[in-house]
């Protein structure tokens, strides 16, 4: 009985995870923009691989395999957003063009790409726009 339940749950998780991973692969090819591609890359692929690892964890009869698979899921869910954030930030910094159908770019003008810092609307960027203040800021001295 327990074995049958394990089989059913594990098969369902396997098929869901495979579908999500296939969707991530299609999204990487088909989506028009790096930021849209990253949404497929970070969310769909980490959820898909997490589902497959959970299927291994459910179907295993040994506690060591379950612990390893759950540790893999935790590691994946901790590292995928960090990596995606860093590569997205780098892409925005080096000026990768956005999709032509993009409605709003809320970061436009707020990134100082020369110093690579995010300067808020009340901080250095307004002074930079007016051209009256100094280029450096005390908050950015350590960078």
């Amino acid at each position: 009985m327990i074995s049958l339940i394990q089989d059913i749950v594990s098969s369902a998780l396997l098929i869901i995870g495979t579908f999500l991973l296939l969707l991530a692969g299609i999204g990487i090819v088909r989506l028009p923009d790096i930021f849209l591609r990253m949404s497929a890359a970070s969310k769909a692929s980490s959820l898909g691989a997490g589902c497959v690892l959970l299927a291994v964890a459910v179907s295993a009869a040994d506690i060591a395999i379950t612990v390893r698979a759950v540790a893999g899921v935790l590691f994946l869910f901790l590292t995928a957003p960090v990596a995606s954030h860093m590569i997205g930030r780098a892409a925005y910094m080096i000026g990768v063009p956005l999709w032509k159908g993009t409605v709003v770019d809320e970061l436009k003008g707020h990134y100082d790409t020369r110093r690579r810092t995010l300067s808020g609307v009340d901080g250095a960027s307004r002074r930079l726009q007016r051209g009256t203040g100094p280029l450096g800021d005390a908050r950015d001295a350590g960078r």
Partner: protein
Amino acid sequence: MVQTIALWVVLPLLSIAVALPVIRLVRGPSLPDRVVALDVMGTIAIAIFAAYALINSQPAFLDAALVVGLIGFIGTIAFAYYAERRL
């Protein structure tokens, strides 16, 4: 039942899924596109290793999956630093 599904359904679909980002890896107009494609390929490789561990009842493949995930994460971080400092 699980092993049959993993062998005949999961592994073929995952091999199609790991071949798709290669197109983006070759065609991708910028460096971050290629890095994202490599990241996705690494994540799908983790899933393939897990399915292979399930088919063969070899838990050592789960350790290999963890190592591949770690290397993929560090590689993505390194490429992000490289792309940002390159200017």
